[in-house]
């Protein structure tokens, strides 16, 4: 259980860091990046709580895998919006 505790700490540390950055930063790119870090932290937490007697439950693994793919789609959409906002600022 100790090694899970280590990763739980890392995961919640990532969540805290991302929360801090989201609350203090207005730059669009950095906000997208912080949201990604938040998602990674949650993924670690999810998988760390899925360990049981040395085996990792397959269902949360599938959940996290789904989460990663969904996140890249949303990130691409966010960045496309950010770029378009920037382009319109020029015109």
């Amino acid at each position, binding site marked *: 259980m100790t090694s899970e505790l280590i*990763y739980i700490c890392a995961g919640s*540390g990532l969540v805290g*860091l991302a929360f*801090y950055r989201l609350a*203090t930063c207005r730059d669009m*790119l950095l906000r997208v*990046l912080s949201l990604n870090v938040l998602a990674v932290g949650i993924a670690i937490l999810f998988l760390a709580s899925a360990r049981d007697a040395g085996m990792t439950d397959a269902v949360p693994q599938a959940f996290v895998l789904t989460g990663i793919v*969904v996140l890249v789609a949303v990130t691409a959409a966010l960045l496309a919006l950010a770029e378009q906002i920037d382009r319109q600022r020029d015109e």
Partner: protein
Amino acid sequence: MSLAFDVLLAFGVVFTAAAALGTHDRVASIAGFVVTGLLVALSLVRLGAPDVALAEAAIGAGLTGALLLRSAWRLKPAESRVSPPIDRIIVALIAVCLSGALAWAVYTAPGAALYPALVSERLAESGVTNPVTAVLLNFRAWDTLLEIAVLFVALILVRIVAPAHPQPVVLGELMLPFARIVVPMCAFLAGHLLWQGASVPGGAFQAGAILAGGSLVLMLGGFAVPTPRLLSWGMMVALLGLAVFAVAALSTEALTGTLLLYPDGAAKIWILMIEALLTLSIAAMLCLLFCGMPRRPLK
């Protein structure tokens, strides 16, 4: 020994993430993010989730990093407005409390998972032997179907919003030998991951991400000029994924009377066919999400 490794790795993850989020240089923070992603992939292996680790390395670190770099290059540097120190201290305190509470909540959770017993009991009926693939394409295929719909919707959104014509940059003479070796290898690796996904870690998403990486090498290296024609073909392939998966779901219902219940004994064939098409479609979608689409509607 392995405990020391875990501690170092966890510390590395948090440290690189802090470095990525702490700096104001965009490229540096993206580099930090990619390194964090790779370290996280390693810790996921340590947590016994190699399927997720593959996806995190290929998609979470690689593709997201590439997307962020592309945008960092296109976006103008933002005005750096620093919030007052009082606010920052308060937010930092809240963040620390949040982290602590979260760690406590997860650590003390009883964690009596019901799933492992159910999965191992029914794995034999699922048609594949890799439990993660069994969950993704059989036990919870509905989630995966909706996930493909998420990718589809993101693609449409990008098409509405950012009609950027991707312009290949001449990347120099070393790209050609690189592409000659790497692109076929990507194709081979994608096929391998797809096939082995039935029994050991791997599957459609990882294979699709690698295939997308290979095609991006071709596009960015200027070997496959993304003409509107090529892009609309890509769009067709991308859209095919959701269509085929939905039609397959409906035809399983027509054949067996239950949504996404594969016909008796043919589960493996169905899963592999769906996965093969999804791989192509995911690769096309990820590629198009990266390079954007012409706004002119498809002719």
